[in-house]
């Protein structure tokens, strides 16, 4: 049974390790356990081996383990202390792999109540590891005694074991609150900490009890720094939940901890204050100044903690950190590169435009030495900086392209590529340099995802640059050199050049011709398809099949196709039955902090609407409604702080509308019943309930704009807040909600058209309509754009929802699909601001509507219909758009 020697062991001949590394043959070795008298040294040695091997990840079979376990129980006869302790460890390690571990219960119970203090604590912990709820009740008496034992190790062991048991046997452990309470006033710092932790876990669902507990401990004061940290966490959580103002005693307590003599507590308090939402600069100041002190600590961990927290502050309140700039500058040369990186990125956020160049130079000196996680942090800081100082984009772009050339993992490269893309989008003048850097990058890029992403971008942006031909070479190189996915993406990009640049078309066709001989079928298919579309030389075809791809929801398409295959029919599959993709939400600016990289493979997350579709489909009454057209954002029908909180989501179907009411009863002492449409279920406190109301349109209408007044009627049964037992009798009551409006936006689904111009041309000139509207109550172009988008519920395209600064006119591109009408509507809205210079001042006249003109000078009938129907209905006044 001797395992092969490690090379290392052969060389050094270390007996100890050699012995440890052999796989124990339990049948032979465990025999030693049976020798009389017990030889503690040899037995200890074998137990050590077993634990060591388990620790190395060695696998033991159940029979083998059980055999050894049973043999081991005999060792309880020996009084050797270390041997006994190792038995406890073995029990814990083998609890999951051996059978019938509970046979040692009585031995452990004996040790936990015995005279040897050295045994008692570990015996409790081993016992609780193998025990279950029924057995826990049997030892309950001993546990209670142990919790209040005057020996700290016993008390701590009992408290921590109880904490582990809470998950499994909450009801039993709950009964030990009084003992835990007593332990909390122990002199021992660890006992105090563990008692506090257990008390909190038992009471965390009872806000009142937590408040009382906090009051008690913050007043009496604790000795343990660990317990203080725990108190600070509980206090800040409670502050957050109750939205308590910063004048609350809890905040005062946290602030007072900034003056604690233990650094751990001071840091915890500072970090708690920094993480509080809506902290003012004045409230942050004391926390920032202790963090500033920590910046010059000799302990690396403390410097790291301080600068990491300051970095967080800098994201929201850069000015609050400016005072630390000097200390942060000193950290740039810190030997711990993580600290140096955090210091620089913090400075980038707080520093002025003039310091940017210097800081960037400093980063480049050591960027190769830091881990990928921090490289990503640097890239994110640069990305934020570009938004702040757009004029610096050329410096940044250079820096980023250098980083792109260095070695690095996928996450790092992706961060850089994303950053460059966002710079290109924000600064049109940086487009050509950015594209050039990216072209260079894909020449030698091992990440398929990035290469395809860049090729897609080149296809979108390249044709619109002054010299589109220079990108063709880079793209065609991919077709020659790369994997299938990249080749296919390159073919698509080529087609876009051909569709948009007539002079390039002949050469593109030649290149596509060559791709038709590709070894991969996807590449061949794409090439053939594009080739044929391009040869037609029709703008509408190009727009529909080359620029703007499918606009349906992918999970929806999958489901519809699956459904279609289940029910064979003569009819061809109709794309119209597939729900539209909800417009991709513009990428959220990721928080500039190193985040945990998820280890799960990226999966296409179902959109919000796909989730609703699924929920509605599960309800038998709604089976025949067809595909869900659109789900609105939740509308609040009550104030935020009321007894009952109700929100509504409007689901639009063809000819129907379903209102989904999500209601929450915030009262602990009431049970509501017979809420209409709640199927007579009881509505318990704090649990949201959902009800649906189904409305069918009159047949002549295809869309409606109107108001519903809502009242909730129900039966109230008061209940005991402690036990939750409701009274037998109840009374009827009702509650008036705010009105629910059905608007134009509910009937229009957003559709993203990456190439708006092409989509516009696709609709054709004959539908164009030009009208002028005046928006009386809107003051700025930004506001006008925002209002129009939310009123029409259409998707802004080509970033036209961002109004450049200091402009008097703006063109907004909107795309959307109106329910029941085939085809996509597109609206091009030219917004003009009057030349009147003092217009934004108070001299603004409501009667004079000349301030803002919304000139809908091109409109196809679908949109016009919807706009007109919106404008002409009574809702117009509410939306405050006047004709």
């Amino acid at each position, binding site marked *: 049974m001797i395992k092969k020697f490690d090379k290392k062991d052969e060389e050094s001949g270390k007996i100890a390790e050699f012995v440890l590394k052999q796989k124990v043959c339990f049948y032979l070795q465990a025999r030693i356990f049976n020798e009389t008298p017990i*030889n503690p040294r040899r037995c200890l040695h074998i137990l050590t081996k077993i634990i060591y091997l388990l620790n190395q990840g060695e696998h033991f079979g159940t029979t083998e383990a059980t055999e050894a376990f049973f043999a081991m129980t005999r060792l309880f006869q020996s009084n050797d202390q270390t041997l006994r302790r190792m038995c406890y460890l073995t029990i814990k390690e083998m609890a999951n792999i051996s059978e019938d571990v509970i046979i040692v219960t009585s031995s452990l119970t004996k040790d936990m109540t015995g005279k040897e203090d050295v045994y008692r604590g570990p015996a409790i912990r081993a016992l609780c590891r193998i025990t279950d709820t029924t057995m826990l009740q049997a030892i309950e008496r001993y546990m209670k005694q142990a919790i209040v034992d005057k020996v700290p*190790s016993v008390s701590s062991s009992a408290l921590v074991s109880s904490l582990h048991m809470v998950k499994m046997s909450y009801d039993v452990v709950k009964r030990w609150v009084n003992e835990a309470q007593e332990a909390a006033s122990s002199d021992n710092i660890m006992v105090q900490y563990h008692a506090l932790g257990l008390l909190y876990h038992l009471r965390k669902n009872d806000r009142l009890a937590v408040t009382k507990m906090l009051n008690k401990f913050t007043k009496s004061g604790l000795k343990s720094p660990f317990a203080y940290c725990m108190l600070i966490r509980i206090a800040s959580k409670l502050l957050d939940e109750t939205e308590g103002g910063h004048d609350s005693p809890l905040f005062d307590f946290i602030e007072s901890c900034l003056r604690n003599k233990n650094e751990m507590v001071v840091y915890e308090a500072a970090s708690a204050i920094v993480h509080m939402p809506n902290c003012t600069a004045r409230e942050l100041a004391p926390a920032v100044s202790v963090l500033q002190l920590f910046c010059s600590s000799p302990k690396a961990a403390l410097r790291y903690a301080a600068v990491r927290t300051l970095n967080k502050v800098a994201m929201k309140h850069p000015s609050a950190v400016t005072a630390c700039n000097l200390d942060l500058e000193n950290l740039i040369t810190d030997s711990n590169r993580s600290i140096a990186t955090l210091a620089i990125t913090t400075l980038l956020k707080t520093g002025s435009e003039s310091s940017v160049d210097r800081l960037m130079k400093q980063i480049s000196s050591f960027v190769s030495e830091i881990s990928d*996680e921090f490289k990503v942090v640097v890239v994110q800081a640069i990305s934020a900086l570009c938004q702040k100082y757009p004029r610096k984009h050329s410096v940044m772009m250079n820096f980023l392209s250098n980083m792109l050339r260095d070695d690095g993992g996928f996450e790092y490269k992706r961060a850089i590529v994303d950053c460059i893309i966002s710079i290109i989008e924000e600064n049109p003048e940086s487009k050509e340099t950015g594209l050039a850097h990216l072209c260079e990058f894909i020449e030698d890029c091992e990440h398929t995802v990035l290469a395809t992403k860049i090729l897609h971008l080149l296809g979108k942006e390249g044709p619109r640059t002054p010299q589109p031909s220079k990108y063709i070479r880079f793209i065609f190189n991919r077709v020659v050199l790369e994997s299938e996915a990249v080749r296919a993406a390159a073919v698509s990009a080529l087609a876009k050049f051909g569709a948009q640049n007539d002079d390039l078309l002949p050469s593109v066709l030649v290149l596509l011709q060559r791709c038709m001989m590709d070894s991969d079928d996807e590449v061949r298919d794409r090439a053939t398809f594009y080739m044929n579309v391009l040869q037609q030389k029709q703008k509408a075809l190009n727009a529909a099949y080359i620029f703007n791809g499918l606009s349906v929801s992918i999970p929806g398409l999958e489901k519809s196709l699956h459904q279609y295959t289940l029910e064979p029919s003569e009819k061809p599959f109709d794309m119209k039955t597939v729900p539209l993709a909800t417009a991709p939400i513009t990428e959220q600016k990721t928080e500039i902090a190193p985040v945990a990289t998820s280890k799960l493979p990226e999966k296409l997350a179902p959109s919000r609407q796909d989730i609703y579709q699924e929920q509605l489909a599960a309800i038998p009454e709604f089976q025949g409604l067809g595909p869900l057209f659109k789900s609105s954002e939740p509308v609040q029908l009550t104030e935020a702080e009321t007894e009952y909180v109700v929100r509504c989501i409007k689901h639009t179907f063809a000819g129907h509308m379903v209102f989904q009411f999500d209601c929450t009863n915030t009262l602990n002492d009431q049970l509501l019943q017979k809420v209409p449409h709640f199927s007579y279920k009881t509505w318990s406190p704090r649990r949201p309930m959902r009800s649906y109301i189904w409305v069918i349109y009159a047949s002549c209408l295809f869309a409606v704009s109107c108001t519903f007044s809502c009242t909730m009627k129900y039966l109230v049964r008061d209940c005991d807040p402690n036990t939750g037992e409701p009274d037998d009798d109840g009374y009827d009551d009702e509650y008036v909600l705010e009105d629910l409006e059905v608007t134009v936006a509910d009937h229009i689904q957003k559709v993203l058209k990456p190439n708006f111009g092409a989509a516009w041309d696709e609709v054709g000139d004959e539908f164009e309509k030009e009208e002028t509207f005046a928006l009386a109550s809107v003051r700025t172009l930004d506001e006008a754009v925002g209002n129009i988008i939310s009123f029409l519920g259409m998707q802004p395209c080509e970033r036209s929802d961002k109004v450049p600064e200091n402009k008097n006119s703006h063109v907004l591109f909107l795309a959307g699909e109106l329910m029941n009408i085939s085809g996509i509507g597109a609206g091009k809205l030219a917004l003009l601001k009057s030349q009147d210079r003092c217009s934004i001042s108070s001299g603004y006249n409501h009667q004079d509507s000349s301030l803002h003109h919304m000139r809908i000078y091109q409109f196809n009938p679908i949109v016009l219909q919807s706009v007109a129907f919106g404008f002409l209905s009574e809702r117009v006044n509410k939306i405050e758009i006047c004709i």
Partner: protein
Amino acid sequence: QDTEPSLYTVKAVLILDNDGDRLYAKYYDDTYPTVKEQKAFEKNIFNKTHRTDSEIALLEGLTVVYKSNIDLFFYVIGSSHENELMLMAVLNCLFDSLSQMLRKNVERRALLENMEGLFLAVDEIVDGGVILESDPQQVVHRVALRGDDVPLTEQTVTQVLQSAKEQIKWSLLR
């Protein structure tokens, strides 16, 4: 960062040798459920830390505090939201306890010869992810490792013979 206040602080305690091989590893939650994932994580940690003696790092979204001595690398790992100084307290306690138990001789060979001491010490410092004790004096006291070998006079003749036999056997096996 709305994490529930909790006593569960430590995600793992690791000791690696100067080749990055595992000497001791205890994981307290399911961040790395399989041995394969654990070993990969340990490899990554070792590669990122063995050249620099910088005490703290952020790896795979976790805060890692570490310390090296001769041919040993000690790591304590917690969530990135965890108070770094708490993790540091655990690391220091572990190192100081071992240092006392091994009589300042904290190196690979001495540790391998006293594995039971290490097992018991870690068991006293962290229990299921909860910091059980942070004072090295207390830990050493509680581990109460038996001092030197049992004096010869207290051993039975058979025991002496047995151990002599064993030693001869090992020296032959080498």
